């Protein structure tokens, strides 16, 4: 603790010297080098974008209630820099599909998406907007990705606000260009899917080969298992 305080004091003094113009030559170079961080412009842009998401004020059904509580102090989406819900698609860059999309609403949703400026992202919140959910009938579109691109699906009926925040974190990592792996990749469980071991109860050689190829492609940065 004492050492820390001393080093802080030393750094404060050096900063004061710099501001006074007393640092010169080697000292100055050292000081600047310590405080520089080199990165690419793209990384900085994506880092900024991922931490300043402007979601669209847009509720479709009951999931919208959970979406509203995201902004409250209990869940506080502002912790992740996405608290500014915009009431116009022109200013928004994240569309949260919070609820079932009926066939009459689908063109409206599509128009809202088309009006958003690039870069833009879409989160399908809950079972209904991901797959139609319990509404396997004539009135509801069976998954919003039938008519628009969806970046991330949050499961649940409805998902708890924490789940949506988790999805938002995943989306942030997607925006930064380092999407999360699927759980089978993370836990080294590729090849344990039901379809891969349906016959004998054990992974087939073909499934294992396919899984190995999938891991390789993820390692090379091609995979998008967000």
């Amino acid at each position: 603790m004492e050492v820390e305080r001393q080093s802080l004091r030393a750094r404060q003094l050096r900063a004061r010297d710099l501001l006074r113009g007393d640092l010169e030559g080697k000292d100055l170079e050292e000081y600047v080098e310590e405080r520089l961080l080199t990165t690419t412009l793209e990384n900085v842009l994506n880092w900024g974008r991922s931490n300043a998401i402007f979601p669209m004020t847009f509720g479709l059904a009951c999931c919208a209630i959970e979406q509203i509580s995201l902004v409250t102090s209990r869940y506080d989406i502002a912790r992740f820099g996405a608290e500014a819900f915009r009431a116009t698609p022109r200013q928004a860059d994240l569309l949260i599909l919070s609820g079932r999309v009926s066939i009459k609403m689908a063109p409206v949703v599509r128009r809202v998406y088309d009006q958003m400026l690039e870069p833009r992202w879409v989160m399908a919140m809950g079972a209904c907007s991901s797959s139609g959910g319990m509404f396997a009938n004539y009135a509801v579109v069976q998954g919003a990705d039938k008519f628009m691109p969806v970046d991330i699906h949050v499961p649940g009926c409805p998902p708890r606000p924490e789940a949506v925040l988790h999805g938002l974190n995943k989306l942030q990592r997607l925006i930064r260009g380092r999407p999360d792996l699927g759980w089978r990749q993370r836990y080294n469980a590729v090849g344990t899917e039901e379809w891969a071991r349906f016959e004998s109860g054990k992974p087939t050689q073909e499934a294992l080969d396919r899984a190995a190829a999938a891991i390789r492609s993820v390692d090379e940065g091609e995979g998008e298992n967000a």
Partner: protein
Amino acid sequence: MPDAPGLELIAQGIEEGRQNTVIETSFEHDRATLVVNPEGVLHVLTWLRDTPEQGYTFLASVHAADYLPATPRFAVHYELLCRERVERIHVKALLEDPAAANGDSPSEAGLPEIDSCTELFPTADYQEREADDFFGIVFRGHPDLRRIAMPDEYVGWPQRRDFPIGGEPVLYTHNEIEAPRWFE
């Protein structure tokens, strides 16, 4: 709620005005029902509304139903309320399906038809549109019979019992046998 003898008196009064209008009366679960001939439904509703001692001046609901294996297949239900005595009566008009009689598709054989009661009860406007939208029942004399809930260009009547349920099967990984490589 008219009791069972009261319902018979109502049926008698309607029959005096127009023969062969009331097909059947039923009184179940404290609920009075008049099953009527669809040709005479306007007479029944007018009689119930305008006869002074009846006074069923409030139409609470118009809706349709499809009883597919049964004939007649369709029914239009009218729920009437007398607000002075707080009594309800239920009028049910059974409709044959023209397509079932000659085995044609609805587009060729035509749709079941019944008289619109919008002249008697303006509130029936949207409810008859809804019945037409979902069951394909044509209300003759309706001022503006368009689809109300489904898109205008929609084909079919989705609440009919022979309408496919719709949606798509949910694919899990164990569906791989039926739909190989569905995840790609």
